């Protein structure tokens, strides 16, 4: 279901953003308040609840034994999925994941995969036969804009908090978890929205409803860019993209500090 935004509201939000301000009083490079809670669920190997303003996302990590892909016989498997349940927003509908949910899962997955966040080789038990399969599940509890950054932050926090279940012969003992999941990188996602001619960080729900285009960047600690996703029907100029990348890498440093326990 698509929500119709009144044209006068759209114009007003554009005017405000173009004048260098935000509806909620933030600057163009400010996040809303970010909160991270780790290890909420005993049944999961790792979990985290992240809120950015009114947006709330839970990430859960579960691990099972499985077979590796034939082209990567010595590497564990990562599977990411996201669900946008109707509780989170009147525009979300029940049923199998639709494109918006798939996009969230893919953007998060790409950030984690391409940064090499999980040391997948350490998840191999018997080469070509048996590896750990890591399921990363995202549940959106409340949607108030910028699902990408909240989801990535929740995912990496959950992975960092995850402990591997004990393996005895071929049996997995979920009650005994000890070693942390091998995580070697902390990818951070920063999402920018282009509204009118201005590019602002962390779009709120209202800003997302009127944006022309958005750009999500995933960066790692060294300052390298490891994934990008562009959305919306509008376009970015080359200068805007380069400028946004510089801003994103700088901002990610601040977010990465939040991950320290």
């Amino acid at each position, binding site marked *: 279901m698509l*929500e*119709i*935004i*009144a*044209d*006068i*509201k*759209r*114009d*007003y*939000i554009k*005017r*405000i953003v173009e*004048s260098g*301000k935000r*509806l909620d*009083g933030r600057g163009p490079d400010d996040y809303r308040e970010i909160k991270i809670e780790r290890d909420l669920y005993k049944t999961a190997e790792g979990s985290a609840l992240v809120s950015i303003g009114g947006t709330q996302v839970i990430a859960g990590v579960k691990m099972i034994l499985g077979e590796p892909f034939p082209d990567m016989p010595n590497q564990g498997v990562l599977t990411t999925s996201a669900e946008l349940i109707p509780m989170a927003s009147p525009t979300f509908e029940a049923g199998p994941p639709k494109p918006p949910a798939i996009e969230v899962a893919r953007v998060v997955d790409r950030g984690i995969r391409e940064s090499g966040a999980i040391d997948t080789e350490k998840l191999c038990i018997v080469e070509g036969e048996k590896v750990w399969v890591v399921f990363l599940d995202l549940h959106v509890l409340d949607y108030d804009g910028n699902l990408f950054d909240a989801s990535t932050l929740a995912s990496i926090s959950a992975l960092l908090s995850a402990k591997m279940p004990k393996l005895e012969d071929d049996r997995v003992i979920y009650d005994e978890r000890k070693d942390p999941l091998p995580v070697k990188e902390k990818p951070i996602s920063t999402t920018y929205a282009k509204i009118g001619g201005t590019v602002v960080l962390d779009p709120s729900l209202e800003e997302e409803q009127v944006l022309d285009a958005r750009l999500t960047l995933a960066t790692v600690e060294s300052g390298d860019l490891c994934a990008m996703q562009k959305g919306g029907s509008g376009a970015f100029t080359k200068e805007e993209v380069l400028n946004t990348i510089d801003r994103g890498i700088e901002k990610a440093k601040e977010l990465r500090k939040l991950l320290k326990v």
Partner: protein
Amino acid sequence: MRRLVIPGELITERSVKLGGGVIAEDGGVHASTLGLLDEREGYVRVIPLSGRYNPKEGDFVIGVVSEAQNTYWVLDIRSPYRSILPGSEFHRELRGNERLRDLLPVGSAVYARIKEVTKTKGVFTTLRWRGTRVLNEGYLLDVSPSKIPRIIGKKDSMINVLRKEGGCKIIAGHNGVVWIEGSPERTAIIIEAIRYIEENSHRGGLTDHIKEMITQKRSEI
């Protein structure tokens, strides 16, 4: 102080006139929603703490055109029911080759009156009424419909303070949409004030507090 009731709670076993948010069952009157009990002589109702807007005849609402058909518009009034603005209820007749979607394209905002709510919850609105109009500029703020009476205040006391002290044009629709027209700085102050009213609606002396708050904020810009 009004008492908080939960759904299913027995309110009275006397025979009374029923308002909204209550249901008569098993010889008693029960709350049907979470809210504050408003009990008067021979009349009870529960004022819901939250929830979507339930359209009532005679209410004034702010709606956004979500469809423009040949003979009617569909308005989004943040209610579960489909609300219609018939072409004949626009404040003037069509001229020449005009179509309805030329008068009010999808995305237009209007301040309309609810003319009728049928038994099957068909909602019919009108712009042929004093005060109703098309909103051509400004910002639409979503608030909880249950807080609208507090934002308007007794005999418009609160909304007049907002208008006068804030220096903006303001209309509060019964459906929980508030229209604000003014400079961005002034609008921001009004939004902050309305959010404050929403959170502190149970407190006394709110009107004076809001007056001070707005005066102070405005001296800062």
